[in-house]
């Protein structure tokens, strides 16, 4: 994966992460590390926006498996938005979506998370 961008949203306890490109090699570990750093700092509402993410393979799936696990351990709430069918299929197959709230877009995810208080 080339890179990703992160923005911390107004509610302050929410972080939105946008992975870009291909999540298919060890470079994508940075995504998992970033999530963990936020969780560790107490920002436990994590939104991952998939609109700029391309293809995902098993290595990428491993990264997301790790993110889900860490969010569970920190008692956080993970939301996925703007997923394409290819992403959803893979995540469903792997049992990842079971632990995640999936929203059409970022706005819906944010209003859900703000509602959590």
């Amino acid at each position: 994966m080339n890179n990703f961008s992160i923005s911390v949203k107004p509610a302050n306890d929410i972080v939105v992460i946008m992975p870009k490109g291909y999540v298919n090699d060890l470079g994508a570990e940075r995504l998992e590390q970033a999530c963990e750093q936020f969780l560790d700092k107490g920002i436990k509402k994590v939104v991952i926006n998939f609109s700029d993410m391309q293809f995902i393979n098993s290595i990428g799936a491993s990264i997301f498996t790790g993110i889900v696990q860490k969010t569970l351990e920190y008692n956080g709430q993970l939301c996925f938005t703007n997923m394409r069918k290819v992403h959803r299929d893979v995540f469903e197959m792997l049992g990842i979506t079971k632990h995640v709230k999936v929203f059409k877009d970022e706005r819906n995810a944010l209003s859900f998370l703000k509602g959590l208080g």
Partner: protein
Amino acid sequence: MKEKWNLKRLIFNISSLVDLGQEVTSSKGFNDKMKTTLYVVTGMFSVPKAALFLYNSNSHNLELLTHKGLREIDGTSLYVRAKHIKIFKKNEPYNISEIKDNSFCEHNGGAFKKLQTKTFIPLFAKDEFVGAITLGKRLARGSYLPSEKDVLKVIANQMAITLHNSNLFKKLTNKVTENKKLYENMRHIYHDTIQAFAAAIDAKDVYTKNHSYRVARYAVAIAREIGWEGRDIEGIYVAGLLHDIGKIIIDRGVINKGEELNTMEISEIKRHPQISYDILSKIKFPWKDVVYFVKHHHERVDGKGYPDSLAETELSDGVKILALADAFDAMTTDRPYRGKLSLFDALREVKKCLGTQFDEKISKVFFRVLQKEIKGEIKEAQILPHLDKDFDPAIITTLLEAITAELTA
């Protein structure tokens, strides 16, 4: 356990294994390489926590090499002795509660707890114990399905070979082994995996057990005889194994139906080469023509085949080889709609269909290689071992000679 074959899962698994093959042959450093392969496993089976160990035969310990998702485990090692190594099945995933050896469990209980281990896989490269993988709890389902265990074994085998070839391993074992090229070993992973998938395809069709495997062998026999080598041989072999993969999404009832099929059912079955192509073209195979061989294995030289009604000159040798191998195996095995033909009748049938269904040049090669196999002139027979043994070699040889003479005249 009965398993539903999920197409997406299948594609994901094959692609992951192809990725794995590319990783182990990449120019990455050893540690990154091993880490990546561990990520492939954890991603395929949604296991958040896993670790990979290397066996140090001097200390008799498994030493931590890399891990995923664990904290504060640096320096963790596992205790393993010769008697344990002896009882481990090679590259077999064990639920740790299944390991009955007390000394192994007692010594490693603490480490397993720290690693949150649920599954332990001892890694063997051939007969040599080289390391182990520990896997934690899965995010999705708990236990592994039989087919998942098969895939795990293939991966474990690959990781074992990669470990074995590493300099680090050699240093630890004070051994100078011949540095076999990883590139060659990569072939095993493709072949083992693809073979496992081929078995799954054939399992769908009660009448064609091992059909794909035999087709692959027959195709290899013909291809070798016309002078193909190396990578091309591998390609046709893989094409043989996977040519009917499209059948996995066609209704089992239609495939196994004994009576005559109606028009709808026929067109349903005829979709399979296209579906096979659609599936396989999503996978980055290291062999370039496999997808086309597969797509056109029901084409005929007279242009009356499907799906594209290609004729003679539009068909490559690979397609013609695969089409013949496939049809010949169909003739010589029982089918839902008819019993098998004897070898004698099948060969006459091939002869009869020259220029319509089958290519003459390729068929001649097939007759020739079969003749050579019967005469024992081929070191590793590919066709003979799979045929019923009830034919008279003298009669078949006479027939083949007669056909060859007629075709040459």
